[in-house]
């Protein structure tokens, strides 16, 4: 796997941690941790853009953040699940997978040109 994809995963993971912290932090050290994770997040986001198109990285970043907060809402904060929510989540996940496959194709094509 391309090393930048590891940064995409990390940046999404940090995003979910700080969003969770944002909803639950109460004491000063908890808010401190939220800030630390935001800093990690802003550090890994440009790293992910090194070899993956920025538009792709950003759309995935927004998509994973949205799915994550929706799931947190349902499982941790007693939100309700609905057919529409599942439908939009499925569409989102299909889009993220499609984007990964589409960009792989472009990279393969570029590689062909170099040989």
């Amino acid at each position, binding site marked *: 796997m391309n090393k930048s994809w590891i940064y995409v995963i990390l940046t999404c993971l940090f995003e979910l941690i700080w969003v969770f912290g944002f909803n639950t932090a109460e004491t000063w050290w908890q808010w401190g941790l939220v800030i630390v994770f935001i800093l990690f997040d*802003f550090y890994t986001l440009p790293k992910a853009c090194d070899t993956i198109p920025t538009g792709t990285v950003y759309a995935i970043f927004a998509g994973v953040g949205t799915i994550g907060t929706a799931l947190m809402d349902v499982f941790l904060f007693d939100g309700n699940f609905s057919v529409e929510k599942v439908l939009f989540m499925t*569409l989102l996940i299909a889009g993220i997978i499609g*984007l990964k496959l589409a960009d792989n194709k472009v990279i393969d094509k570029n590689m062909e040109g170099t040989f």
Partner: protein
Amino acid sequence: MGWLFVCLAAVSEMVGVIGLKLYSQNKTVRNGAIYIGGLGAAFACLYASFNYLQVSVAYSVWIGMGTAGAVLVNMIFFGESKNIARIVSLVAIIIGVTGLKSLS
């Protein structure tokens, strides 16, 4: 007034994403400031819009406009791939994000 803040937030987000692109190519203080400043301003404007609009409505419109704008800016100004599979996937993500946010 609320919609003005939402629009400002979406524009700031695009500025932030341009900064993200520039900063990932060339790690200068100026590019870092555009990146962090743009995204920071986006959150501040979005937060301000919550005073006038319902959170889920403001959030879903902002994230839809911002994500679509971020992708378009990169396609138009930074020559990112415009192949059909990529565009279809991005549209799916934007609809999914906007729809999901409007429900929560």
